[in-house]
């Protein structure tokens, strides 16, 4: 579960996220949308404990990320938009390294199915330099899933994946949610959010514009129309302008 109360993130005089509160429960997939510069990445990074919040409280799986960071981080996984891999660790060595960091005993038994699920088992002894962008992304995700996190943050999870990879990724996210994981993902691909997310949060200039189930948010901006898709909702909610 993710609990956020009055989260604010400032960079000097610039406020990236303002007074954001939300709760994401196990099994829910929250889609974070907003124009460029809306504060999506800052929000995700604060939730994952990568950057400190200026004010507010964040609890991950019941642990306060600022006072009990280690316990909170043991429960979460963060998947950045650009896979950050160690150039001189092979695919298998990445999983070995992460297993030691998280203390995942018998990690081979978990790693092999993950490698096969993401179709990188054949590349297990290759360095990241020999992998395509999509494969690197898959490896980063496999590393994040190794310790079976109960809370997951995805920043643009489909970037660089081929059509089959996109389908598998969507299935993977849905599967983890069904298994009880709490998931937040940020993406500009609104059709992805429609397919995968149970809830949506629209941000603009760091502020919450709308939050709720897809149906609730659609209803809020449909102005009585039926069959309004998320793209239309997004344009109406953000006024069709940047930031």
């Amino acid at each position, binding site marked *: 579960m993710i609990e956020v109360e009055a989260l604010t993130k400032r960079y000097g005089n610039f406020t990236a996220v303002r007074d954001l509160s939300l709760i994401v429960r196990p099994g829910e997939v929250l889609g974070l949308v907003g124009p460029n510069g809306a504060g999506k990445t800052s929000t995700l990074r604060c939730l994952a404990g990568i950057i400190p919040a200026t004010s507010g409280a964040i609890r991950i799986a019941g642990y306060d990320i600022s006072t009990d960071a280690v316990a909170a*981080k043991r429960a979460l996984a963060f998947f950045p938009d650009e896979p950050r891999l*160690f*150039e001189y660790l092979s695919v298998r060595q990445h999983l070995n390294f992460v*297993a*030691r960091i*998280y*203390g995942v005993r018998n*990690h081979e038994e978990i790693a092999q199915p993950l490698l096969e699920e993401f179709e990188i088992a054949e590349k297990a002894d290759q*360095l990241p*330099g020999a992998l395509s962008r999509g494969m690197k992304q898959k490896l980063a995700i496999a590393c994040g899933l190794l310790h079976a996190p109960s809370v997951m943050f995805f920043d643009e999870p489909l970037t660089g994946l081929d059509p089959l990879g996109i389908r598998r990724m969507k299935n993977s996210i849905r599967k983890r949610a069904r298994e009880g994981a709490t998931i937040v993902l940020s993406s500009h691909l609104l059709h992805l959010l429609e397919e995968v997310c149970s809830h949506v949060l629209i941000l603009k200039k760091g502020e919450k514009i709308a939050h709720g189930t897809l149906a609730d948010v659609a209803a809020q901006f449909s102005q009585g129309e039926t069959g309004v898709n998320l793209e239309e909702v997004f344009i109406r909610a953000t006024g069709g302008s940047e930031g």
Partner: protein
Amino acid sequence: MLNALLYLRLTSSKNWVRSRVRRLRQPKYALGAIVAFAYFYFFFFRNLGRTPGTRSLPPDASPLMDAAAAGVTLPTDWLPLSTAIGAVMLLVFTLFSWLVPARRAALGFSEAEIAFLFPAPIKRRGLIHFKLVSSQFRSLFGAAIMMLFSHRWTFLGGNALTHAIGWWFIFSGLSLHFRGANFTLTRLTDLGFGAWKRRVLILAGVISIIAITLAQLPEAERMPAAADAFDARPFSQWLLTLSNSAPMSWLLWPFKTVIGPFLAGDTRSFLLTLGPALAVIVAHYLWVVRSAVAFEDSAIEHAEKRAARMAAWEAGGTRGSVAGAKARRGPFALASFGRPEFAFLWKNLLSTWPYFTVRIGLGGAVIITASLLWIGAHPTWRGLLPGIAAAAGIFAAYTLIVGPQFARQDLRSDLGHADIIKTYPLAGWQIILGELLTPTAILSGILWLAILTGTLAVHPLVMESEWLTGTLQIVIALGLAALIPLLVVLQLLVPNAAALLFPGWFQTSRIRGGGPEVMGQRMIFFFAQLVTMVLALVPAVALGSLLLFTLHVFIGPIIAVTAATLVMAVVLAAEVGAGIWLLGRRFEHLDLSTELRAS
């Protein structure tokens, strides 16, 4: 078309300078620039306008040139000799350009240049001209820098301008020659002329020229036999004769011509050398333009590899080229449970050379021990021991002080992965400790070998000493060995602290070719490291010395050294522990997005 390309180059250069001037508003760059300019001023520019002092020459020095007024006594034939030596050096340089290359001509285009220029309606010759103009910028810059050095060599004569122009001729000649050779070799490869065949033929050709010249020398001018008293004159005379005799003189002629303006001692001889030097440059230019081959494919491949190298470097990579790197076995079996800090040791050892292993370290220790015991046992070679001991001491000091700048398999290499590392369920101090393990292990291993060398080299020299007994020597060596890892961690804490406390500064100091302000930043970092190290050592050394001198009187040196080592180790360990904890706290609160935004 060339105008557009020239515009691109000039505008890029202008904007590069502008951006650097503009960022001097930020204190970190301003301070770096002040330090760098102060360095340049005091070491180079201060004497730039001055003419060499005139000192009255001794009466028997009449055949010497005015340059001797600077205090350097040169033989009358120094100019032709210098020309010959310089020409031989250039010949060796250019020989490399014919022997080494195994890849096709690529011309070194960047990815952006390829993206914009290759699809543009520009002839291949236009692209070559663009690169030639670009290389002229480098030649001019190199000439200006080298002039700052050579202007101090007053015995050369000439002035700052003639030196700068002289260097320009040398750099331009070399640059054009490298390109021409690259094109010609690519043509030869296309004709089925293999690399090894080419290398053998070129070497055979050069050796034949030298052999024919030697064979043709008259008996009286053959190579002088070694005399008891060292005298370089007969040898230099022989070298001069060799360089002036055909066919060697034909081979060296272009090189002597290019070097002429630089070595010209006065305006008249400078002007006289300009024409022939210019002719050589023009001939090289025509050769390059006419021998041009298709370079587009190899240029793209070269640019991609370079971009990957740069990306790896900026991300903190340390193992050289990423392209072509292969996975290798871990340095040790990493179990999936246990102290997580060792995972960083394991990972970072994989990022460096594979030679840093316990097995190689022990092998080195065995070789050092066997060699020094053998040397110590042979009176003929025993005289080498003081030199070996001194060299080991200097090497150890150098490794301790400068080593942390090179062994960067720590947080400095992982700063690009900070966002991922921050999601690990580890306390900050655990991450810092883990990150410091690899460079500590590497540098400690090297320093232990240096201590072993020094101890074994000193031992036979002081065997007869009453106070420095064999046991005491071993105790001192073991004490030093025990303190080494702590000293190394202490040294490593400083650059890692710099990376954490000033990530913006640190990131910019990693950029290559960043300008004088970045050079100044690096100087500040290094100076700060030295000062911090001295300050951190003061309490440990003070307490250790006090204990050593006190206990030495009452109990004896062995226990005194042991106790002093223990106390120093405790003090250093406390400092290291505090440093790691503080850096860990800093890492936990590090907001890279803010820090790098400010840079």
